[in-house]
Every structure is written in C-alpha cells, then in structure tokens.
C-alpha cells in the first residue's frame, strides 16, 4: 500500500507569493475549470474552507479553554470575586505541597495497572490464542473482551466496588480458599485501595489491548511465522523475532491510550473511592475537580491541571514519534 502511495506524482510545488490573498472571493468553479493549472493550486487553498468549520469548533471548545487554564493558573481566584495575579505561586504549591505531590505519585503508580499489566497480559494472551481466536469462537471472544470498553467507567467502578466490598466476590473467593485472614474491605484499606482501583483499570484496558494485538497479528505476514518454524524457533523466540516487531504500532497505540487513561483518570476513582480512604487513592483528575468545583481554588486547580497536561504530553508525545517513524 505504502509503495503505491510513493509512486503517486508529487504534490504541486507550494506557491512562493503570499497566496492566501488571492482567494478571498470563495469558490469559482467556472474559472477553475478554464484554468486547470491555477485551479489545482487554488483548490489546495480552497481546501481550507473544508477544514475551517472543524478548526473553529476545536478552537472555541478546546484551544481557548486550554489557554484560559494557563491564564487562571497564574491567579488566585475563588471563581466569584476579583482575581489576583500571583505569578508562579500556584505552581510552587503543586510542587511543594505533599498532598498535591502524592496525587501525581498515585497517577504514575496507576500506570503499572492501566498500562504495564494490560500490555503484558495482552501480549501473552494474544500470542497464545492467535491460532484459536478465529471463526465464531473468535468473534465471541473479541466481543466479550471488548465489553469493558462499552460499559461506562462509572458502571465498571460500581461493579468492582461490589466485587471488593466485605461481602463481595473477592473476599468470598478468599474464604472458600481458606484464606479468611486476608479478607478485608479492599477499597477502604489504606494499603490496598490504590492497587485495587488500579486493577479496575487493568480490567478495562486488557481486553482492548488484546483485541488490538490480535488484529495486528493478523496483519503480520504468515510466511514470517512459517520461516520461524522452519528455523526451529520455539514459541518464545518466535514471539521476540516475529510478533513483537510486527506489533510495534499497536503497542504504541495501546501505550498512548492507557497512559492517558492512567495519568488523567477520573471516572473510576470518582465513582469507587472518591480519592479515599483519607487521600490514599487521590489522583490529579479528582483533585482538580475538588479544588475547582468544591474548594473554589480555581488558580491552584488550574495549575495542577497544567502540570498534569505537561506530564501527559511528556509521556505520550515521544511514543507518537516512535510509532510514526515506522510509517515514514
């Protein structure tokens, strides 16, 4: 496919004179048909008319709010009264207040559960089931694994809060195994609450990663597997020689999606623990909501939002580059 794209004739060279000026009058189909060469160039600039509506909505409801978050973060404002400019004070607090730092630490701990576990499990499962996940059984399996993506995260949190409760399935199972000493209300336990909510993320993300990897493996040239077999490669060397390199792009996609979900998690935490017990599971997302909409500390909430955004971009953009380099 990509070779077919390469063979296509190159784009017309860009205009050297400020071309935007010439095209204020909108589409003029008759003229364009009469002047085919001009038409091709003019068409490229007219293309902006197609892009503009989307850009406009995007600017008003995404770019403008983002710019305002930056602006708010330099003010002390309760949302009602006058705002006072405070320079970098809010950022200083984000980086010195142990309670706020702990939310960021929790967000990074969640990456283990939202990203690392789903991708490792997804890789193992998808390479084990590659040959059997076909036909009707394969369809049923894919549908089932996709279910956690379909139900709202709030519903997932409600289901898992029930699983983790004193009467829930987790404790029930432990009791049956004779491990009564380990039973506890998991989400109310200071040590276990964070791993417990993290595992909700693993539950949501593992199916997605597995299905993505399976569809990625379907694209890998079958002859590579045949060749590996001929060379006497076992499952493990086959995995590292054929499967893993072939899935580079899918892995990149999974890392991106799950890392954003981990760092910016809100729904699951809000609906399962609200950050508790104490602040044991407090994450930036819920903290921003709390600061801005219940504590009326708009500036501090905004500063935390900006720090969170920078962290997310710093983690995710390098992966985008790695993935797109492969395409180039």
């Amino acid at each position: 496919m990509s070779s077919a794209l390469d063979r296509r004739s190159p784009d017309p060279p860009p205009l050297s004179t400020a071309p935007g000026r010439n095209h204020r009058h909108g589409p003029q189909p008759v003229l364009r048909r009469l002047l085919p060469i001009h038409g091709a160039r003019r068409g490229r600039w007219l293309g902006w008319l197609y892009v503009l509506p989307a850009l406009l909505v995007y600017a008003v409801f995404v770019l403008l709010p983002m710019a305002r978050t930056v602006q708010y973060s330099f003010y002390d404002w309760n949302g009602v009264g006058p705002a006072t400019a405070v320079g970098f004070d809010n950022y200083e607090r984000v980086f010195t207040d142990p309670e706020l730092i702990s939310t960021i630490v929790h967000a990074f701990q969640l990456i283990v559960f939202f990203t690392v576990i789903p991708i490792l499990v997804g890789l193992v499962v998808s390479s084990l089931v590659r040959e059997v996940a076909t036909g009707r059984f394969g369809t049923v399996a894919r549908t089932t694994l996709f279910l956690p993506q379909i139900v709202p995260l709030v519903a997932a949190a409600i289901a898992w809060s029930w699983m983790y409760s004193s009467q829930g399935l987790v404790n029930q199972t432990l009791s049956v195994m004779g491990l009564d000493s380990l039973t506890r209300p998991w989400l109310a336990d200071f040590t276990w609450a964070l791993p417990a909510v993290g595992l909700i993320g693993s539950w949501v993300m593992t199916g997605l990663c597995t299905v993505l990897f399976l569809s990625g493996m379907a694209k890998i040239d079958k002859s590579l597997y045949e060749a590996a077999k001929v060379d006497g490669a076992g499952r493990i060397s086959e995995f590292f020689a054929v499967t893993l390199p072939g899935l580079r792009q899918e892995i990149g996609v999974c890392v991106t999606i799950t890392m954003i979900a981990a760092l910016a998690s809100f729904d699951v935490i809000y609906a399962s623990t609200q950050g508790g017990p104490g602040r044991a599971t407090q994450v930036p997302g819920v903290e921003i909501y709390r600061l801005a909409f219940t504590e009326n500390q708009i500036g501090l909430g905004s500063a935390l939002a900006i720090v969170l955004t920078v962290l997310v971009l710093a983690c995710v953009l390098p992966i985008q580059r790695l993935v797109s380099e492969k395409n180039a």
Partner: protein
Amino acid sequence: MSSNGRRMTGIAVLVAVMVFTLLPLVSLLSAALQPQGSVPTGLAWPNDPQWGNFVDAWNAANMLTLLKSSTLIVIGVVPAALILSALAGYGLGQLRVPGATLILLLLLVGLTSPLEAKIIPLYYQLRDMGLLNTRWAIILPLIGLFMPFGVIWMRAHFLTIPRELTDAAKVDGATTWRAFRHIHIPLAMPALASLALLLFLWTWNQFLLAIVLVDDPSKRTMAGALGSFQGQYGTDVVLLSAGALVIMAPTVMVFLLLQRHFVRALLQGAIKG
C-alpha cells in the same frame, strides 16, 4: 501433537480471560436479583430471582427520561461531529491544504491532552454563554473535543483514496464540492460508520462533562445519570446493581447488534494495512 497442545492452551487461556472479563458483571447480576433489602454475597444465584428489581430500578432511575436525554445529546453531537470531521479530513487528506502539518500538530495536542486541562474554563465559558444546566453544555464542548480524533480518523481514510479520483471527477466537470458529495462521501461510508459508533459510545459514556456542567441528572448523559443514581442509592446494593445494569443495557445492546459491522470494519482496516 505439539500443535494440538498449543490449540488447547490457547483455548484455555482465552476462556480464562473471558471469564475474568465477565465475572464482575455476573456478580453484579447476581446481586441485582436478590430480594430487596437483603445483604447479598458476592456471587450466589438466588433461589427466587427477583427480576422485578429491574422494573423498580427502571422507575427509580427514571430510565425513560434518561434514555430521551442521552439520545438527544447523541443526536446533537454525532451527526455534527461526523460532518465536520469528514469535511476537514477531506481537506487534509485529499486536497492536502497548505499548512496541513501544522493543523495536525495542533490536533495532536488536543488528542493527547486530558479533559482536565479544559474543564475549569469550560465551566465559566458555558456559564457566560448561559448554557449551564442545558444539554447544549454537553453537546457543544463534546463536538469540539471529538474533532482531533474525528479529523485524524477521516484524514487517514482520505489518504488511502487515490487523488486521481478527484482529478478525474474534475476533468468530467465536477467541482471539488461535487466530487466530495457524490464520490468521496459514499466511499467514506464504512469509515464514517465506524467513527459514528465510537462517537456514540464516547458521548453516551461521557461522565466528567456531565457532572460538572449539568446539575439535573435528567439532562445528563447516561453515565452522568448513573453517577447521581449511585449517590442516591449507594447503600442499597441490590437496587444499585439493578440500576447499573439497566443503565448500561442500551449501549451493550447496540454494541452486540453492530458487532458484525464492527468486525467488518476491523477486517477492512487489516486488509488496508
């Protein structure tokens, strides 16, 4: 023999993962069927399943109103987002407008930055527009928030369509717009359908926007309404479980219905790659 063993391992692993995926939902179902007011245990099929609990949950959650509200929001968001995405994707992927790389970079920032980066000013912006506590407060920001994904998705589709097609249409006297309407849109239908499915899901399940911008649960999305249902009935495990299942039922049903389409879209993607 080893190939047979491999098959058995594969099937066993797959079944195990499927069971793990379904377990929380089955546990929720078993709780939802217990007599109301009882204290259920994790997973125990009741002797006398109380299917009537779903009717009570349906009424308690005001499901008809919720369905109507979520549907209105979807109708407000999805068609508009599809049209804007298709137009922009066409401009970027097929007409290759100058400056496309810059636009893509701008969209990428929006795609990867979290909603938390926008939610605080969105509240004040929509308050100033007088739209707080209306469905527009969810609809308008969602269209904007879907633009990065929608546009990049449609651009990827239009990149795969040979530009000779547009050129040929022009030779036949069609304008760029006519080529778009009559040639490219029909060809883009599968890509648009998959995008529509995803946007529908993400709208229906949108939570943060709903709880920040709309106080009245009957004007929220389904997920936002579930949040307030949880607040109201959080201590009644039976009714909460039934309510959660009732509220997630519509999306699960739509997903199961469109599953074939979804798989077909995936397969097409596989062939293209």
